[in-house]
């Protein structure tokens, strides 16, 4: 019953909030790691990375 990533990505590109949330959740461990600098979690950086993720959803061309 699991929908695949491409479906989520397509819907997220179209602006569907739930799909965007699902992708953020999927990648949050990655973002969390990147936002941890000198073993400290930097919340401002994490927010910047979420914005980057949203931009990537818009700009990524899956063709």
């Amino acid at each position, binding site marked *: 019953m*699991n*929908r*695949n*990533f*491409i479906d*989520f*990505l397509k819907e997220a590109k179209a602006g569907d909030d739930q799909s965007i949330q*699902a*992708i953020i*959740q*999927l*990648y949050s461990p*990655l*973002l969390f790691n*990147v*936002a941890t*600098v000198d073993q400290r979690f930097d*919340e*401002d*950086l994490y927010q*910047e*990375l979420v*914005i*980057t*993720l949203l*931009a*990537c959803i818009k700009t*990524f061309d*899956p063709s």
Partner: protein
Amino acid sequence: MERNPGGPEFRIQNQFTKYLQVAVIRTRNRYLAKKQWLDNREMFYDADSRNGFDDLLGRKQYDDSLITELELAFTVAALLEQLPENARTIVRLRVYQRYDFDEIAAITGISYVNVRNIYYRAIRRLRSQMDEQEFY
């Protein structure tokens, strides 16, 4: 949604992950470079901050015949009034009442990092407005 278990059907997801990794590393580098730059500036400003507004704003010696201390005090007060409410409160607590950032954070309920950001932004704004008024 499942984490990527691999395999050819997940080719698009792998591509997206790589695409995202490049972008987030770039964001991280840019963010850290900017933060480093701001920290350096803040250390520069903070060295003077406990000596009140004159030093804080980097005011140089000026000609007494052109502008009096009183005029300057009124100008600073007027510029301070133009700041947003939270910035004004933080600047007053910091400069006039000599609180530390963590104390201000506790008083205002704003996070420590935000207090610092708001404070330094306000000081930069005051500086540039003083520059415009040719007090230097």
